[in-house]
């Protein structure tokens, strides 16, 4: 059942569940942050409408810089703005920022430890028809490996808004991973959000869970639907929303592993180096249990609808259920 102690959207299992993109949540969070803090500056690389940075641009034109199609400059200019005590948000597609400009982010932002907020939209297979060139499936891996960096992957528009406001008040370089498409609203305004803290979104009605699912990003929805289906079959599952991938909430992960002795991770990203890898690194060192990783298996994406792609690349609900059933057999 949904963990109602943290006020999850009760309409989540309805066919007409509200759908809004996480980038929309970012856009409105940025407006709020810009209102609260006049030190916030926003930079765009010719994609302000797509990233929703245009809302900030209209409201605060003096604190908005358009750098053109130049993501390397986007990152390095932001480093300079941050060096003057300001909080820059840089916005583009995840493929180009942090993709194209990785070394600029590593050297001028993280090595300098400047509080630049890197906002990468259109991450994951869910980009759909644009095809593999635009589907960032490596961005979690390349950002979480850099010292000083915080990595957040919000599950819906409301969490994206909260993450945007929260990170505007921290001194860390931060990557926020966003999705293009309208996805189900999982949380409510009352659901707690804190950088570095994971929460259980789905829990058994009574007793201990047999399997723990850890998911990040909008694909958390698939994990919750899978848990709901499994519940009907008598398989008790807990679902943890790991929206902050770095710093990792090791306490929540280990506690879930201790209870279930079996973990399935779910992400719209390469398995290699992604959130599942981070969980595996944590558990291998602290509390080894069998783990199954749901994610993209070392291949590039292609054009298609998000649903077609989820199915083909085996990150949809039915494959999550399959992995849960598989890991039940692997349990010691």
């Amino acid at each position: 059942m949904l963990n109602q102690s943290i006020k999850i959207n009760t309409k989540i299992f309805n066919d007409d569940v509200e759908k809004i993109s996480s980038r929309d949540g970012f856009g409105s969070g940025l407006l709020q942050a810009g209102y609260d803090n006049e030190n916030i500056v926003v930079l765009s690389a010719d994609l302000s409408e797509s990233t929703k940075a245009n809302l900030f641009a209209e409201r605060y034109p003096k604190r908005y810089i358009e750098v053109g199609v130049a993501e390397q400059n986007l990152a390095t200019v932001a480093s300079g703005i941050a060096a003057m005590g300001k909080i820059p948000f840089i916005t583009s597609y995840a493929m180009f920022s942090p993709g194209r400009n990785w070394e600029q982010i590593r050297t001028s932002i993280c090595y300098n430890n400047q509080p630049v907020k890197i906002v990468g939209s259109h991450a994951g297979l869910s980009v759909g028809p644009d095809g593999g060139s635009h589907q960032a499936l490596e961005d979690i891996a390349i950002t979480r490996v850099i010292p000083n960096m915080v990595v957040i992957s919000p599950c819906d528009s409301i969490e994206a808004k909260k993450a945007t406001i929260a990170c505007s008040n921290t001194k860390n370089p931060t990557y926020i991973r966003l999705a293009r498409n309208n996805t189900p609203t999982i949380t409510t305004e009352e659901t707690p959000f804190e950088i570095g803290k994971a929460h259980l979104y789905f829990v058994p009605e009574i007793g201990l869970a047999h399997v723990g699912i850890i998911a990040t990003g909008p694909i958390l929805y698939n994990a919750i639907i899978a848990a709901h289906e499994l519940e009907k079959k008598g398989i008790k599952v807990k679902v943890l929303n790991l929206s902050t991938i770095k710093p990792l909430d090791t306490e929540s992960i280990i506690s879930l592993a201790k209870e279930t002795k079996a973990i399935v991770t779910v992400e719209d990203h390469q398995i290699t180096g992604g959130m599942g890898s981070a969980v595996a690194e944590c558990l291998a060192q602290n509390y080894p249990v069998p783990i199954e990783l749901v994610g993209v298996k070392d291949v590039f994406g292609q054009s298609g609808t998000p649903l077609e792609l989820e199915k083909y690349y085996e990150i949809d609900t039915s494959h999550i259920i399959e992995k849960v059933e598989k890991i039940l057999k692997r349990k010691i």
Partner: protein
Amino acid sequence: MDTLNDEKIKELKIIANKIRKSIIEMLFKAGSGHPAGALGMADIFALLYFHVLRHDPKNPLWEGRDRLVLSNGHICPVLYASMAHAGYFPLEELETLRKFGSRLQGHPHREFMPWVENSSGPLGLGLSQAVGMAIADRIYAGDKTIYALLSDGEHDEGNTWEAVMLASKEKLSNLIVIVDRNNIQISGNTEQIMPLGDMSEKYKSFGWFSQNVDGNDLQEIYKAIYKAKNHKGGPSVIIANTVPGKGVKEWENDYKWHGKAPNINEADMALNELDSLYA
């Protein structure tokens, strides 16, 4: 004042000579590093740190200071030596260059030495950072001048030109770039590796106020900085034609000294030569 008087020139020449000697001592003790560019830029650093910059070595993080961004971090011995001679930290600390635990990392790292404005080393990143500083200063109505020191070789990097375009678009008249036009890079002469041609004209065509000077002539550089500071409506660049290895005749204009530390005999010879200039 739009010119330097003779007394000032003499004073700055003596300081530049001290900076050069420190550079050679540091690199000899470190056993590795980059002498040519550092020696070539010593006059410009002496002028900036001892006459031009608005700064306070006793209060290095004073908010009102001008910002100096060194982009080609490999010439940092000239930065460290200038800072030490200006009083930021004791001269003895220069001996720790490139040693474990030193604040003077092989390439500047702001986390170790917070009084440098930026970590640097990987090329082509400094101009963008300076542009960011100039933009921030303008948005928040500051009155600082942002100086960016670049090598000619790092104009091979596309990132540099992205920043050149943005500075022009944003009309950053609080930004002054000095390009160390010494015609060498690590594996040869710039015009063979990747021809840069007339850099002054290139900048001009991007809408910059551009000047060409002898980068080892204090008066010429000073006049150019003065004009740049008074130029309104856009960013300024000074193409400083410097002699790499300047001060040590045998090393001058030889790209082999780009990235090689002197041994004891070479260091001795160089120090004697510099001593003879201003005994």
